[in-house]
């Protein structure tokens, strides 16, 4: 269970602090998929970052599997990230110095859940078997996102947090990447929180949340 309670977050602006999240609470169970929508600048990404332990909330609690993140040291938070969270971003997901197979295996190796067969399986599922030795810079955008998603799955996280994973792709590619992603996530028991501005994408999730004026609706 990934649970946020009364999370508040502000950023420094030109005229003092600008509150972005004003007491947000949400809970995602294993196997559940949730879409998070909202206007540009409404704080969707911030909420996702906080959920992933990449950023710290000013107020409120973030609990992943009974662990409260804000009370942890940076290295403990990093460990939670390694072991329980998979992240997929809109861009710059990949480590440019490593090839595709090393990228897919990276987090899995970090948290010692590496399983060569599973990695192979994921690569095949995403149609990446011929690209395993290529470097990210030689891949198309769709392929790069497929690698990123495969990587997040390879580490067997409890939750996958995705921030507009198909936002940078053309419509056709976006649709097929999303299909592949949802299909494979469904095979695991991972919970999925996906930030998106597309209603089509949101509609594919089990549940939808809308962030507006710092509050969830």
């Amino acid at each position, binding site marked *: 269970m990934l649970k946020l309670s009364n999370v508040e977050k502000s950023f420094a602006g030109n005229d003092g602090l600008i509150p972005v999240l004003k007491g947000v609470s949400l809970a995602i169970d294993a196997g559940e998929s949730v879409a998070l929508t909202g206007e*540009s600048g409404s704080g969707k990404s911030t909420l996702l*970052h906080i959920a992933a332990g990449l950023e710290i909330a000013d107020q409120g609690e973030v609990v992943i599997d009974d662990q409260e993140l804000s009370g942890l040291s940076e290295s403990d938070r990093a460990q939670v990230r390694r072991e329980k969270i998979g992240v997929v*971003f809109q861009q710059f997901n990949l480590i440019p110095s490593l090839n595709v197979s090393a990228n897919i295996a990276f987090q899995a190796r970090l948290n010692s859940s590496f399983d060569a067969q599973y990695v192979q399986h994921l690569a095949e599922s995403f149609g990446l078997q011929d690209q395993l030795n290529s470097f990210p810079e030689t891949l198309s955008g769709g392929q790069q996102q497929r690698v990123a998603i495969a990587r997040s799955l390879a*580490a067997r996280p409890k939750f996958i947090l995705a921030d507009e994973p198909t*936002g940078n792709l053309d419509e056709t590619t976006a649709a097929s990447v999303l299909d592949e992603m949802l299909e494979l996530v469904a095979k695991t028991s991972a919970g999925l929180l996906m930030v998106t501005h597309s209603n089509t994408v949101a509609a594919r999730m089990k549940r939808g949340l809308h962030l507006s004026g710092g509050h969830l609706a």
Partner: protein
Amino acid sequence: MNTLTRTCFVALFSHWRRNPLQLITFLTGLAIATALWSGVQAINSEARASYDAAAATLDEGQFDQLLASDGNGVALSTYIMLRRNGWQVSPVIEGRLGEVRIIGIDPLTAPGSLTGVELNEQVSLNSFLGKGAVLTHPETTSVLSGKAFEQLEIVTNRNIAPKLAFTDISVAQRLLGQSDFSRLIVSNMQPLKRPDLSSIAPQLLLQRATQSADLGELTDSFHLNLTAFGLLSFAVGIFIVHGAIGLAFEQRRGTIRTLRALGVPLRRLTTLVACEILSLAFLGAMIGIALGYFVAAALLPDVAATLRGLYGADVTGQLSLRPEWWASGLAIAMLGAALAMAGKLFSIARMPVLASPRPRAWAIATGNTRRWQAASALLLAVLALALLAYGSGLTVGFMLQGCLLTAAALMLPLLLDRILSFIQNRSNGVVSHWFWADTRQQLPGLSLALMALLLAVAANIGVSTMVSSFRLTFVEFLDQRLAPELYINVQNEEQSKAMDRALSQNARETIVIMSERAEVAGLPVELEAMRVGATHRQDWKLLEGQTDAWDSLEGGSGVLANEQFVRRAGLWTGDDVELPNGSKVEVVGIVGDYGNPLGQLYISEKLFLDLFPDRFPLRFGARTDDPKALRETLNAEVGVPTSAMTDQAAVKEFSLQVFERTFTVTAALNVLTLSVAGFAMLMSLLTLADLRVPQLAPVWALGLTRRQLGRLELLRALALAATVCLLALPLGLALAWILLAIVNVEAFGWRLPMFLFPWDYTKLWFYAFCAALLAACWPALRLARTPPNALLKVFANER
């Protein structure tokens, strides 16, 4: 300046206002590169400028001398008669007053600058002649007290050896109570016509200049070392300037793009950027020249002392602002800046107006560049080998050095990539795998800095090896040549015989010193008589010799030759030479003879006397455990004045002290070059820092802490530095070898043996590590403290 230009300029310059640290970095980079170059140049040109004066400095052995064969000194009337007949000679009175050796000279006729001290520096001719000034070392002042000195003006100068005092000849006459001159110095410049000595002063004996003091060539050798250092610091400096300019461009790529997009003409923009960079380069260079001046001023007294003490060459020890060095410093900085800028301007010109504003690595070497570098390196290496095999001459030596350095630098990125890939393939952990892969990816961006580090470390290894080898060799040489504890001069045959008898009874061993110029194998040589004894057999190190060399020499069937002679004559051990009387003898060994331009053959005393039956030794060396007692005994038994006997220990000690100063200079230059290389690294790392964020952000997001990443960055710098240091060792040794075995032989005809100094190299490595560590600290710390926000921005949707 029109509005457009001004607006652009303000936009460009606002970058520096907002990032003063970058401006400081840029200026500092240029300044220290210029400082290093101009510092070395300053020392060099100052030393060279003083060289002519140095060559003319009065020195015991530098000039031929006239001595009275009856041992009674030279009368004033004889001196005047010689002068009136055109002989350019100058009188010298020498004697002891207590512990102090008093040397009286005539400043008006003495050749050269006499005392090693320019008279007008401290003493006018007026006071030297009129008031009786005495020039001496500050520590000797206390000894020069008492009634005799009351009326005299004591002037101290550290350039004069301790326990030595120079004064006008009339003062010396009074102090020593002696009217006749000890000897006359024969100037090297003589008029067109003058009668033979035998026809006007048959009572005088012409004693040729001795080789021991003829060390002018060693001075040149030292200059050469400094020149080599200058060359290397130049190379390192160019790298820095290049790096600094690259940094300035990369940081403002976005601004430049925007300005173009807003309609600023390309030509205007490039002109503006060029003006801006060149003005900044000028500023940096001026700061560097000022810095260089201080560096040189701080080092020069040591350099001066080194040259003077070691070689008897005179460098004033005061730095003047010579145009050749500050102009060259400025030229290097500006030229380096212009060169580096040309490439960048070219890339601006080619950059599409709407190219991505994101900075791209400024020196990402494509496969093409790398191939091109490797090909050039290979070509240079082949050229170096060809030069080594077929070339000769000093220029070739330096060219060889240049080829080798450039080839090594060009080869470095490729070599490092291979090494890193090797390690990467053998690393197991996921983090270490990524670490090495990432390090490889940094290589193109860091390669300039790493090349600079390679050159700096190699240069330091090379120069340290050379200087230390030089010292070791020279100390050994001094030990061997200045073995006798006491040297005794006698005036005539009768005294010579008596002295020989007295020495055989009172000294442990007698060394006779007799030489004659002759022609052997078509070359002018000095034939040196040698009475082979324990000193020779034990202390003399032969560069090469037959096992029974000393026996053959003693028996008269063999001769020893110095290296200069055999190299010039194309002979080697085992070859025969024909002596002036037609007899053939075998070269049974070769001795190192540093700083001597002349060929020399050592023959047995008996053989010498067969060749020159009229000769007898006028100079002896004595081995003894108690020089003081021996001096008194000889004075009592043979009647030779104690002033004619010199204790060589003090001379030797002084020479050795001077070497320590050479090391101060070398060490200082070591630290300087390494700090320059460290700075190059710092700048490269800073340039890369912004580019690194997108590369590191995913790793962080996947579960590595910022602190871990910072530690890894530091480790990376150290790993690269370590690899470069290892690679620098063979390069540095190759450089040293070229300097010692090729350049030195070409320049002076003798080869310096090369020794290895692992402890020195270890220390150098340590310094290099420190430099790399210091350089990497700040960027690593910055990374560890990057706010998560900055990392997250990479992923943000709204960019």
